[in-house]
Each structure stands twice: as structure tokens, then as C-alpha cells.
């Protein structure tokens, strides 16, 4: 194993630069290091001004998503030795505005997530005395995969539709909407339909499928979207056959 590895890191200072540039750093190559460790090495030992987001360091918080050699990755879950023998290019997540170095601005995602109403909606509440809303393992299984989303936005960086159409609500928001639609305790599917069965919702998706490929939690947003397309189409057919339903 080589002793060091070259990292090309995006640098961008809004006060100084008109557009981002790449800066090359040499970092020690350690078998147990992930890309995030290399970035922290740079920040601690070489250039303290390097700016990036991270928190849990264990693939749970979803903060450290970046483009690694052109692919959206959680840098805490991407080993450095995988890139041995070549330079590693670390860039901010694609399609989001960059505020500094590797930090992106994700307000657009947060706004869109809210439109998908990713929370339990009840039309009728049970009285407290009646106890909790029980769920069988099978009922849990129908939506569990979609509930694993950590909002890391890697799927947005993999989705060219989001890059080309700023209005598209995006993969994670749609997967999370489907997570609640499929929850046996939820009664909000009709409310969500307005945002989901829309040209900016599921019908905006051209099924590139890369959102599913890059998802570090195996959520399968592409699957959620296609399933919802089928549901929305069936709903439309039913409304034609039985108007008023």
C-alpha cells in the first residue's frame, strides 16, 4: 500500500472566488481511513479553512455526502484504499448551490420535503384510553425500506431530472411520501396526492434509476416513485369509471 494519496478538493470562498477551483492535498494512506478521515486530516494538519459538513461518522446522520470521483457518496462510508493508485477528487454534491468549499445549500430540498408531508396524518384520532395504533410485522414491512432514508440528498445529486428541472420534487421526498402512504396508521394519502401525482411530482421522474443505485441505505426511491405512478394511474382510471370517488 502506498504511503500517501492525492486528494483534489473543491475550494470556493464566496468572498474571494467567482467560481470553485480544485486544490490538491497529499494525505497519509491508512487502510482504516475513509474519505472523511482524509478531509479531517487536511483540516487539522494542513489547512484549517477547509469547510465541509459531517457529524456522526457512521452513516446515520447523512451530513457528509459529497461527490467522490464524480459519484455521490457518504464520505464516512467510503474507504480511501478503494482509490489507491489514482487521485481522489472530492467535490460538493452536484445540483445544489455551493456556499463554501464542500458545503451545499439544501433549503430547496427541505422545502420540497415539506410539500410531500412526510408525517403521519390522521383524519380521525383514537382516544388515548384506546391505546396505541398497533401494527403487524407485515404492515411494518410494507414501508420499512422507505423509512430508512437519512435525508443525505445523495439521490438528488444522482438525479439529472432534479439538475435540469428545478421544480422537480425529487427522489427522497417522494420516497418519504410513499413511506407514509404505505403506513397502516396513516390516513393522508389523499392530501399528499396533490403534490405527488403532479408533473413536478412522480410524473417528472423519467426513471433514470441512479437514485436507487447511490442510496447508502438501500431505500430504492426509484421503486417508490414507479409504484406511486402505478397507484396514481389506477386512481385516475377509477375516477373515470366511477366519477366522484
Amino acid at each position: 500500500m502506498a504511503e500517501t494519496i492525492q486528494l483534489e478538493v473543491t475550494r470556493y470562498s464566496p468572498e474571494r472566488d467567482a467560481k470553485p477551483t480544485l486544490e490538491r492535498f497529499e494525505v497519509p494512506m491508512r487502510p482504516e481511513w475513509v474519505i472523511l478521515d482524509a478531509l479531517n486530516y487536511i483540516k487539522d494538519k494542513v489547512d484549517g479553512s477547509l469547510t465541509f459538513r459531517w457529524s456522526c461518522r457512521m452513516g446515520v446522520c447523512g451530513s457528509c455526502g459529497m461527490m467522490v470521483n464524480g459519484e455521490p457518496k457518504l464520505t464516512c462510508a467510503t474507504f480511501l484504499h478503494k482509490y489507491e493508485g489514482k487521485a481522489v477528487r472530492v467535490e460538493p454534491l452536484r445540483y445544489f448551490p455551493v456556499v463554501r468549499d464542500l458545503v451545499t445549500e439544501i433549503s430547496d430540498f427541505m422545502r420540497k420535503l415539506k410539500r410531500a408531508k412526510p408525517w403521519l396524518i390522521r383524519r380521525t384520532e383514537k382516544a388515548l384510553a384506546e391505546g396505541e395504533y398497533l401494527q403487524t410485522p407485515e404492515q411494518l414491512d410494507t414501508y420499512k425500506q422507505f423509512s430508512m432514508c437519512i435525508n443525505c440528498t445523495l439521490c438528488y445529486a444522482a438525479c439529472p431530472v432534479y439538475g435540469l428541472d428545478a421544480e422537480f420534487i425529487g427522489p427522497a421526498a417522494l420516497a418519504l411520501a410513499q413511506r407514509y402512504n404505505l403506513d397502516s396508521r396513516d390516513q393522508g394519502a389523499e392530501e399528499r396526492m396533490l403534490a405527488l401525482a403532479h408533473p413536478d411530482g412522480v410524473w417528472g421522474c423519467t426513471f433514470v434509476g441512479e437514485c436507487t443505485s447511490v442510496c447508502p441505505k438501500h431505500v430504492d426511491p426509484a421503486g417508490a416513485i414507479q409504484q406511486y405512478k402505478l397507484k396514481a394511474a389506477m386512481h385516475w382510471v377509477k375516477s373515470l369509471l366511477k366519477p366522484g370517488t
Partner: protein
Amino acid sequence: MNPESPNPLPHYTEYHPRWYRRPVSTYWWLGSWPYVRFILRELSSLAVAYFVGLTLMQIYGLSQGAQAYAELQEWLRQPAVLGLNSLAFLFAVFHTYTWFNAAPKAMAVRMGGKRVPEWAVAAPHYAAWMAASAFVLWFLLRR
């Protein structure tokens, strides 16, 4: 942009950081096989439309009598048309393959409380495709 400032950068907007938005190239799909495959898949729908047009043309040729149909058949035997049809056929096969692989994503079939694996949803599609193709072959090659 502040014209009095020697620095050509715009000033900060209050409560809003200045940011850089990277433009998306027209050729965003080049350089990554999954994206190239996606573009090829989208293009393959043209091949499907082409075959629909060709079938309609043949039906029209038939309706115009034996002579017109024979001329159409002759035109279809030209090497350039054969080449185009072969290319369109490859694209149509690719289109079908991607379509059948997409089916299990859209159809979350559940049996016995568990989701049926993707291959089990795709398999009947392929079986139906093979059966239909075998029937067409038998129909064309029978004496």
C-alpha cells in the same frame, strides 16, 4: 454587482449566503455508463415508434393490392433498409429488456405477508415475451 467596487463580485444579500450554482452541461450524460444507458433507453422508444410506422406502412401496402405490396417488399430488401431495421430491432430488444426490468420496481407484489422477489415478477414478462416470439416465428416459418 456594485459598479464602484474594484472587486467584480456581487455583495452579500442579507440573510442569504452568496452561492455558486454549477451549470448543467447538455452532455451531462456522457462519461458515466448508467446515464449513457438511460439516454439509449430513451432513444430506443424511437425504434419502437419506427416499427409501429413500418407495420402501418405494410398494412397500407397490402390494402393497395399485390403489386404495391410486392414493390414495398422489394424496397424492404434493400441493404440500407435491412441495416436500419437490424439497428432498430436491437434497440427494440433493449427497450423491451429495460421495460421488463422496470416492471418489478413498479409492481410491489406481496404474497404471504412478504414481497415477491423482483426476478419472480420479471420472469412471467420474459416468459410471455418468449412465447409470443415463438408463436410469431412459427407463424412466419410454417409451410
